[in-house]
């Protein structure tokens, strides 16, 4: 393993352990006397109704689909940007063709009205 990552792993482990330890110790130390009033929504909040996992509108899904697809585009753009100078003009053309095809998709979605919010 690249040894350079050891500090990061240690940091990750500490970061994950910290909230767990904090919550657990708090639970052990604090007095516990729940009552109905205490368990209600905080102060003037509205009483929660129904399930927190309600149904969403499809629009959210379409937006998230587009996000993910263009995310993939970024994955391919990134290494190109890193080697921009070495790849030269040919690389520019290559990535331009790639982007042009994806822009066809973008224009299609735009014209289709899938991006309109209402």
């Amino acid at each position: 393993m690249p040894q350079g990552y050891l500090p990061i792993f240690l940091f990750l482990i500490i970061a994950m352990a910290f909230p767990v330890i904090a919550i657990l110790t708090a639970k052990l130390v604090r007095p516990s006397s729940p009552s109905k009033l205490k368990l209600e929504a905080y102060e003037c909040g509205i009483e929660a109704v129904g399930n927190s996992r309600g149904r969403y509108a499809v629009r959210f899904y379409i937006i998230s689909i587009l996000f993910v697809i263009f995310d993939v585009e970024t994955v391919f753009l990134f290494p190109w940007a890193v080697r921009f100078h070495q790849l030269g003009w040919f690389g520019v053309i290559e990535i331009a063709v790639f982007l042009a095809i994806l822009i066809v998709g973008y224009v299609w979605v735009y014209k289709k009205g899938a991006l309109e919010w209402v």
Partner: protein
Amino acid sequence: MITYTSTDHFVLLPGLLLALFGCAVLLLDFLFPKDVKGRGWLVGIALSGVGFASWQSWQQYLYLKAHSMTPLVAFNGALVLDGFALFFNGIVLASAALVMLISYRYLEDEKEHHTEYYALVLFAACGAFFLNGGLDMVTIFVGLELMAVSFYILVGFLRTDKRSNEAAMKYLLLGGFSTGFLIYGFSIFYGLTGSTNLAALATVIPARGANDPLLYLAIVTTLVGLLFKIGAAPFHMWAPDTYEGAPTTVTAFLAVASKTASFALLLRVMLVGLGTAREMWEPLLTGAAVLTLTIGNLAAISQSNVKRLLAYSSIGHAGYVLLGLIAGNQTGLIGVSIYLLTYAFSTIGAFLVLIALRRRGVAVETIEDLASLGKRYPYYALLMLLFLMSLAGLPPTAGFIGKYYIFLSLVESGKYGLAIVGALYVAVSLYYYFRLVRSMFLTESIEAQVLAPSNGVRLVLALTGIATIAMGILPEPFLRMAAISLGR
């Protein structure tokens, strides 16, 4: 360093044209009016895309012929242009053109006419090109998925139809699953060779020796994926449902383009990559072929839905093509090519008769719907009879030539057992095809209604009918075409 040579361009161009026209159709959709005329223009553009690609393929053929059919390798060995790729590209292009011609009226009737359909057909054909000509596993994989994803959408194109939804869902779930297995096999091939090129595999296998467990695992997982794609048992279960639920035009395209391109991939992987490991995969494929013949033909007997029946018969046909590969001689490979060619025309024709017979809102579904077709619509009944004869392999139709070569190759290579099994199932298939024929000609008549098939449907019916007869009576030119696929 990176290059894009004129050879690369020449080899790629037909596929490139298909993709370009696909993009054009998507964008031009917004320029043309949303009426019958506007859509007609777009269909014309999509068809001209296929036309340009065909013209370019013809140029490729002339070039190859002038250079004594020496394969042309492009993109550092990722893509190859040889007679084999050309032949299968031709089948894909022909089926794409025929399917686009017959789709217009069908989609209008289903009230789901969107020009995206034509773009997706073009993209699927483009993906198929990389199965036919791909030598690099990454290219093959991406091409395969391009074709498969386009087909998932096409199968589910009737979005408000529950059966279409379900068919798409099943095809997608099982398709994704099988792709996973295929690519798992590919990953082990990569591990064995350190290269993603199939040609590199052939050099490694002798060193690994026969019955190497890792190689065996890779072959088995790859075969699972490939057998699924060609719709062979025991991974055929998606086919009847998908064929039944999909729009009939898509069913025809799926049964022809997807199946032939997948067979091209299977042949390429088995003969180029694993040619030296024949003793490892031959028993597996033999088992799969016999099972496919059994399941396809026996299950077809009990079907009452015509599309399902044709789906099972198409599974059975995959078994015959596999037999040609198993025979393993030159005759067998010619048999595979000519079989797939004849199968393409007969299958599109048979599904097309169903499309022509459907009136607005009333689809032809069950065998009873075909009752007394001979009296009601004698022309369609005769055409259907012709296509069924071809599918069953009776002379003087196209199907006979395909079956003849498959059986000839089995006899030549001394695999008499398989030849007998195959012949047995031809007899079984005669039975269920005859059920359709009996329903068409020997049942009580019900009144005829006026059909108004579009000109596209008429044209394609005529074309497929003529092709089916011509291949049966004058097989020589078509056999020469099949010989191209062997590089002769």
